[in-house]
């Protein structure tokens, strides 16, 4: 069994989690970001299979998957909750998974593959007029991942992939709550363009690796896998 690495300490973005013991972390945290239909879950499935075949223990996490809180987010959306309310609800869902799933898995030596992380939440907040300073502080308890990939897909390409999956555009993923356009198709293109721009703004601060997601699935996968393998080889035995 290959080991992801030897024990290290947790690294947080800001204030961190003062009461958490930050020592003895053995696993690795790898994040795949990107819009809906960008191919994230397909890629995560393929990467998981590849890493498991190589002998790593892998666990998948994602947004809105906290058993406790995810149904509350749906309820809040049904009740047209305000923007700060939704931001805080998503942050609570993330915190629950971070402390109850991600950190324990990292202690146990797992490679944690995250299907989206705080960057999507911060981008959504920024395009809705919430101050970047506020969002940055809000998520200052988040762990700094080892690798963050962003699947960058042109909105014009993305919209077709969405239509291959569903016959409709999702309300929030089209920014329909923002009054960008009466035409849902146009709203989607504008909104996804705004989100992509936020990701490019965050690139440097959060060391995002931008991956050209307009290519075919196997090509993207080869690109991601090569980078992940190179990273794991570089940290092997280094701690």
């Amino acid at each position, binding site marked *: 069994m290959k080991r992801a690495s030897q024990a290290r300490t947790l690294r947080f973005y800001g204030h961190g989690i003062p009461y958490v013991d930050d020592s003895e972390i053995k696993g690795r945290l790898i994040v795949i970001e990107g819009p809906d239909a960008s191919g994230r879950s397909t890629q995560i499935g393929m990467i998981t299979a590849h890493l498991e075949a190589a002998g790593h223990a892998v666990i998948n996490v994602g947004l809105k998957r906290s058993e*406790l809180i995810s149904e509350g987010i749906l309820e809040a959306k049904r009740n047209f909750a305000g923007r700060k309310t939704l931001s805080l609800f998503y942050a609570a869902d993330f*915190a629950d998974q971070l402390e109850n799933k991600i950190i324990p898995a990292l202690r146990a030596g797992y490679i944690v593959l995250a299907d989206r992380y705080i960057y999507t939440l911060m981008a959504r907040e920024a395009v809705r007029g919430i101050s970047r300073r506020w969002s940055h502080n809000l998520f200052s308890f988040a762990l700094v991942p080892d690798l963050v990939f962003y699947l960058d897909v042109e909105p014009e390409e993305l919209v077709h992939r969405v239509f291959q999956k569903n016959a409709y555009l999702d309300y929030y993923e089209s920014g329909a709550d923002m009054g960008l356009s009466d035409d849902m198709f146009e709203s989607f293109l504008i909104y996804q363009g705004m989100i992509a721009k936020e990701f490019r703004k965050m690139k440097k601060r959060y060391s995002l690796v931008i991956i050209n997601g307009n290519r075919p699935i196997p090509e993207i996968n080869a690109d991601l896998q090569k980078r992940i393998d190179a990273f794991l080889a570089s940290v092997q035995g280094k701690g």
Partner: protein
Amino acid sequence: MKKAIPGKLIIVEGVDGSGKSTQIRLLEKWLKYAGVPVYFTEWNSSETVKEITSKGKKKGLLTPITFSLLHATDFADRYERHILPLLHAGYVVLADRYIYTAFARDVVRGCHPRWVRQMYDFAVRPDIAFYFRVPVDVAFDRIVKNRPKLKYYEAGMDLNLSNDPYESYRIFQGRIVEQYESMIGPENFAVIDGTTDIEEQQRQVRQKVLETLPKSMFKNLQKEAPAK
């Protein structure tokens, strides 16, 4: 860029058993009687959020950060839906506990003080923040007399202060009092001695409110007590 807010925000803080809820309810009745447009809101009462919080509490799953974020979500929901729009409409909003409850509790639970404060920095500051000061032992006796059993989080059992819920509660409340005391100056609390008679406390509360609210808000009082 913010517009001046015509309404007024009056909040009460203090540990459980400090008598703050009794006082704010009496204040509410008086203001309504005086023809003032009033809206009352209390901590942890958002229809959308409180169910999730109580489920998490029952299961004992809440870490301090999650606990803090759920209460902030609850607050934001009430703030965005009710508190801010009503203040803009010229209401007197009465809040039983406000952001200072989070500043005290979350910090005692181990969250970073600056993180908590920045999270709530969207909330307007109250026009009056009453702090009901009582010695921990007095508040403790008032609460414990009426309760056969303390709840897990209420007693601060998640902090591993003591295996005895009552002892844990006492220590937990003592630490919250310390936090409140440290905020009196910086947050400009109006301190009310919570050990005096209910009537005396209410007299002080009303006096402070009369000094703060514009006379024009008291539609009925004006009629009853014309200027001499």
